[in-house]
């Protein structure tokens, strides 16, 4: 290896452009002691926690290809009250992760990519229905401050047609990483066209299990401060788990029907350094009022031994961001407010029961490489409402800092 190192370095001296960027994210979360408001969650109730991430990015051009790597390690210390009533305990979790790791090369108008990559096709700020390749932004961390979102494993190509169209094809293997958005290996495509002032995309995905998805999205710029956008998606199968209505022997059941998702919204920058996002999301396979009431009528004591398939369904359900049909997402960001700090307000409202998840953030740049932040999160809604059950993000205080250097 020593023999080849000088050759490699000299090669890089003439053919490589590269750089490292290291980022850290640290936060302390304070949760005033509270009791679960519901009797049927299987997620542990959380106490205070500390969370630290060290993330490194490497971007390089070597020979004929670009290489990009974003990877890191996180360490979480969390106080937990397990749902089974056992003693509270401190749980320490160290995790290494590879958020993205891919190489891509350009041959004429074709860009060929291989590896783990975030691919965004949707035009919404959060929860884009047409993000068929990678998981989209989440309402709880839309800016990915905590490096929580990862890409998908893929092999694909993008071809630029003229100077305003892109055609993408991706193959997504059936692996552990891709299970976050897929049930099987899949092929996905997108045709994108910029037809000033419109951005238009048609997207599709075919899974080996024969589930098909087809959708479209558009965004239009109006004046110099407004953008409106919309998305629609049809899927051939419904993978939602619903609480059983009859004594089937299972807690959950599946339904055979098609699924539609639609989103409409806009972002507006009425004055300098102020941006507002407002979006409405409809999900046809979300829980109806009856489904929700069935869920609330469960009682832990009556469940007895839970089958493995049901336990998995419960876990999936607990991690599901949207459980019902209608949502509104609103965000206001005021940069450099009063010359002191950035102020961000986020509200994610379930309009089926008018419960909501809310966050206020204050962020201030210190020096040139760091930001300190303070956040307060709370939920509104009754104990049986969708977000009323989200006790772990209710009345929660976060303080922390981000730091980047190269």
């Amino acid at each position: 290896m020593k023999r080849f190192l000088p050759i490699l370095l000299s090669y890089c001296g003439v053919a490589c452009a590269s750089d490292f960027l290291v980022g850290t994210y640290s936060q302390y979360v304070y949760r005033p002691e509270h009791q679960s408001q519901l009797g049927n969650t299987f997620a542990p109730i959380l106490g205070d926690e500390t969370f630290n991430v060290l993330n490194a990015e490497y971007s390089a051009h070597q020979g004929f290809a670009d290489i990009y790597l974003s990877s890191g390690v996180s360490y979480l210390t969390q106080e937990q009250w397990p749902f089974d009533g056992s003693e509270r305990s401190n749980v320490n979790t160290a995790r290494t992760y590879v958020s993205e790791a891919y190489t891509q090369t350009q041959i004429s108008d074709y860009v060929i990519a291989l590896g783990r990559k975030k691919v965004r096709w949707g035009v919404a700020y959060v929860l884009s229905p047409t993000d068929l390749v990678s998981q989209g932004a989440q309402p709880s961390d839309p800016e990915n401050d905590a490096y929580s979102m990862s890409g998908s494993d893929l092999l694909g190509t993008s071809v630029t047609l003229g100077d305003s169209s892109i055609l993408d094809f991706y193959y997504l293997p059936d692996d552990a990483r891709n299970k976050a958005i897929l049930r099987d290996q899949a092929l996905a495509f997108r045709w994108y066209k910029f037809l000033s002032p419109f951005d238009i995309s048609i997207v599709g995905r075919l899974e080996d299990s024969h589930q098909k998805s087809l959708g479209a999205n558009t965004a239009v710029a109006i004046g110099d401060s407004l953008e409106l956008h919309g998305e629609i998606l049809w899927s051939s199968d419904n993978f939602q788990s619903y609480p059983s209505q009859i004594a089937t022997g299972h807690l959950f059941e599946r339904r055979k029907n098609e699924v539609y998702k639609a989103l409409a919204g806009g972002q507006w920058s009425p004055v300098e350094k102020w941006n507002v996002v407002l979006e409405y999301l409809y999900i046809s396979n979300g829980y109806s009022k009856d489904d929700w009431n069935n869920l609330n009528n469960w009682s832990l004591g009556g469940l007895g031994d839970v089958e493995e398939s049901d336990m998995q369904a419960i876990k999936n359900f607990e991690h599901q961001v949207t459980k019902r049909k209608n949502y509104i997402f609103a965000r206001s960001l005021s940069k450099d407010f009063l010359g002191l700090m950035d102020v961000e307000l986020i509200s994610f409202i379930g309009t089926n029961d008018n419960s909501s998840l809310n966050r206020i953030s204050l962020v201030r740049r210190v020096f040139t490489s760091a930001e300190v932040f303070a956040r307060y999160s709370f939920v509104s809604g009754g104990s049986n409402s969708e977000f009323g059950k989200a006790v772990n993000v209710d009345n929660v205080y976060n303080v922390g800092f981000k730091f980047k250097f190269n």
Partner: protein
Amino acid sequence: MSNVSRAIGFSLALIYLSIINCSQAATPSSQEEAQALTILKKAEHARSPWGSMVLKATLNTTKGNNESTEIYRVYFKDDSKTLIGYLEPAFNRGDIALMIGESLWFYAKNTSRPTRITPIQRLSGSVSYGDITRLGWSDDYSIAEFGASNDDSSNQEPPKAIEKEKSPIGYHFVLTAKSPSATYQKVELFIDREYRAKMAEVYLLSGKHYKTLEFLDYELVDGEYVNTKIKFTDRMSKHSISVLEFSNISKKFDLPNQYFLKEGMPDFSKRSLQE
């Protein structure tokens, strides 16, 4: 020449041209307008000689006792698209801005979506996004007034400070916004006899005097003179001065077309880390 003497020179030039303006500059006739447009385009050429080019922009801002430096890589493509990659400070590395025609977007690295911004929004210090994304005037502004200092009808003696200049100010323009992508509502522009912009006073929609831009240096690059240094004096924020310097100017670059589309911004954000 020191900054003080340069400022005095420009002040005298302003007075001189104001006198010309009072005596002869007026709404131009169609013939004058054609002549004015030709001169304006020549001045634009010295700011952006090629429809496509790349450069490194270093922005130094002094505000009171505070000094800051930002560095950007800027790509201009086909006269209508501009891509700005933030290089320094490290915290902003990977942030990018893209202008396509009249629309301008900002993408913060790793975030969800690009957000709309306006050309007048501050990039940093006294510099607006429009100051760097749009180097010309003729597409965005109408010529409301035009005056030439070498007009025989002017009996005014030019101030000595201007006579001593190698290329004294020869043309005075008042430009008014005609396109939504215009950064300012009104621009008072002074161009020398070698058709290079020397100074611009820019005004907001409210009529307020916003900034003074002094085009300080021009350098020969690939056989063309290119503006390489601009000083911005913020008239609404006391003691705020920014100096924008262009270096590593090249008319050749190799970027896929998709980076000049809004959909390509996240990908370009990662690639821009290599700079």
